[in-house]
């Protein structure tokens, strides 16, 4: 057992921390977010040169061959600086799905382009009616000759404006919310029949609603009807990664709030000397440590593909959602009127944490999945057996 980072992981962390320090001061970040698509193409090239875009990919496709701990380190540091570049959308989701399910030919063609910073991608899974059930898909794909033709609408496609390629989850069989019968398609975003409406999320990132009107797909990713088996491990890995991102944001936000309470004076003393405020800051510190503990737990379990992997991932997503709201809410409150302004970055951190809560399903949704898992007689029995064995 060991919770230390390797030499290589420390280097990744340090180099991202340096990047954040040099490029992500408050005004710099505002300038980045104001650019087209909400991020800096120049930063993206820098990520490519520094090798960050290669981290989760297999070595045979020019990747670094990193695991969950490497992704955690990177995403946590990105979270601290509220980095706006679309790493989760392009690398973790779009790239992750290619790596998990695409043919060797497609991997060989596209993964090196992602790593080189030449390709932006997005994963279009959500629909207006789906809420948090990722398999609730009404978009259809039907075979016409050799082509698959898509019809339907996808919503809140993160990085959906900048992406030149999309992976689209569509129904090819079964009922609307069935887990089977979903197929993933690689689609060129410039195809005929695609209409994109782009907009910004509250944290500045760009998303799109995309309609598909008889759009021909470029390729099937994974097997027909088996899209869920490709999506599940990729989305689970992305959940871990966004939770690491949330931890970085929480740590930064707590540090900013603490600093403010030590310097802001009222009634002739620093407001941090008031016990009512001190106890609230202990609560937010405590929430942040809980997130860190569950993140380490879930990352270690994912790395070993252990029995605890799903259980600790679900617990983590619940905790991140709840702790994010607590820490965000307290940060605004303890900053007083200044917490309401856009002159400080507090609000931007709060918004990022709120978006991470909803991403892939919020705390309540994940708690229901968690309860179903741990209360199932089989699970309880096998846990009891494992303890007694």
């Amino acid at each position: 057992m060991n919770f230390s980072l390797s030499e290589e992981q420390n280097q990744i962390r340090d180099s991202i921390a340096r990047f954040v320090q040099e490029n992500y001061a408050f005004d710099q970040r505002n300038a980045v977010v104001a650019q087209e698509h909400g991020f800096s193409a120049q930063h993206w090239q820098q990520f490519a040169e520094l090798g960050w875009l290669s981290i989760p990919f297999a070595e045979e496709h020019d990747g670094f061959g990193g695991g969950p701990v490497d992704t955690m380190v990177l995403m946590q540091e990105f979270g601290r600086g509220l980095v706006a570049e679309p790493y989760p959308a392009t690398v973790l989701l779009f790239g992750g799905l290619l790596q998990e399910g695409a043919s060797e030919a497609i991997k060989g063609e596209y993964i090196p382009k992602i790593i080189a910073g030449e390709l932006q991608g997005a994963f279009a899974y959500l629909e207006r009616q789906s809420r948090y059930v990722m398999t609730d898909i009404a978009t259809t794909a039907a075979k016409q000759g050799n082509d698959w033709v898509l019809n339907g609408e996808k919503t809140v496609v993160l990085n959906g404006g900048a992406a030149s390629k999309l992976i689209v989850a569509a129904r090819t069989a079964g009922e609307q919310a069935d887990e089977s019968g979903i197929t993933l398609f690689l689609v060129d975003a410039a195809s005929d029949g695609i209409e994109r409406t782009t907009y910004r999320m509250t944290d500045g990132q760009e998303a799109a609603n995309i309609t598909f009107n008889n759009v021909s797909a470029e390729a099937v990713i994974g097997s027909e009807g088996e899209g869920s088996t490709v999506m599940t491990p990729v989305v689970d890995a992305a959940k871990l990664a966004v939770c690491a991102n949330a931890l970085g944001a929480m740590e930064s936000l707590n540090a900013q709030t603490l600093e403010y309470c030590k310097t802001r004076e009222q009634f002739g003393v620093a407001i941090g000397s008031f016990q009512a405020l001190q106890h609230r800051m202990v609560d937010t510190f405590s929430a942040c440590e809980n997130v860190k503990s569950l993140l380490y737990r879930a990352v270690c379990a994912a790395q070993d593909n252990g029995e605890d992997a799903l259980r600790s991932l679900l617990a983590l997503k619940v905790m991140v959602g709840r702790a994010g709201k607590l820490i965000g809410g307290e940060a605004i409150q303890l900053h007083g009127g200044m917490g309401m302004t856009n002159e400080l970055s507090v609000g931007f951190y709060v918004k990022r944490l709120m978006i991470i809560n909803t991403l892939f399903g919020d705390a309540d949704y994940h708690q229901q999945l968690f309860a179903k898992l741990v209360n199932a007689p089989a699970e309880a029995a096998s846990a009891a057996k494992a303890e007694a064995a």
Partner: protein
Amino acid sequence: MHTRLSEEDLAFQAEVREFLGEAWTSELAATCGNKATMKEGHEEWQRRLYKKGWMAPHWPVEHGGTDWTVTQSFIYNQERASAGAPEAIPFGVTMVASVIIAYGNDEQKAKFLPRILKSEDWWCQGYSEPGAGSDLASLKTRADLDGDEYVINGSKIWTTYAQHANWIFCLVRTDNSGRKQEGITFLLIDMKSPGVTVRPIDTIDSFHHLNEVHFDNVRVPVANRIGEEGKGWTYAKSLLVQERLSIAEVADSKRGLARLREEAREEVNGGRSLLDDPLFAKRLTDIEIELMALEFTELRALASIAEGKEPGPESSLLKLQGTEIQQAIQELRMDVAAYYSGTFQGDLSAQALGHDYAGAAQQSYFRGRASSIYGGSNEVQKNITAKYVLGL
């Protein structure tokens, strides 16, 4: 970063399970669980631990400890708790022993440590006083030097198991002139000394564990003083850290929660198991998620101690969160017991009143109210965290 168990760890786990299977018998569990025989029961359990060499795993090997790794300590504790076996009563082996090992002289080590290992002495802790609770440093019990003896006058309160103890470790005041943290001295006092009286305190859990201990001109040899006169606060503080780590009882809460789940599964309300009640499921899983986090907070603290570092800031949260979780489990178990949680169990067979766990649920609920008070109340823990961790 990883949490894999090595081959050696797995072999150790098998050894622990084998030992527990043989040594922690249902007869012994019954003896420990009965109010009238708990002392004999715990002493017998501790003798079995001693025979195995596991009475004091955290001590240095030269004094009879083990050289377990962090992972092994963790495995032992998980297995012990999941078998339902208790920790050794902490006042001797965990608390006073850590002070004797760190600050005692050779004679004190030779005299007391072997007796603690063999459970020949039962220790209690003389810290709190009627006027010194969470504000421990306000203590007033006096020790006046008279030749080579101190003469002790004053009272200690909330002294757990003083009725069983033959030794008490005490903080006493030897000087009033400076800051209240100065002038405190750490003494070991024989409970059979003339002038020591123990009075039971009747508590809401109907179980005699708390006492008042009164000292009326009790003479204590200077040889029973730990370290220097007036330095007792420093020694006591090191012990408080140990105490707070052990109060968290993470592994025991895991077992308590698993048991609660199975009790709830059997409870049927309107034809539906309590586990399928969404409000109940929410409360149960709220606790479980917090506990899963705390388990790793503890592991993080242990791992950093093992690397020779001070435990990180996260360890200050263990007492706070550990006791909140214990109380949440106790409260939920009372709710599972429904009407029977309110039946006064007394000495009646619990079964006769409806639920075999209702009596235990009730006792641990009321007894458990103390956990957020002792070892420094949870509000004081927040003050400590704010001051020393957050720098406020």
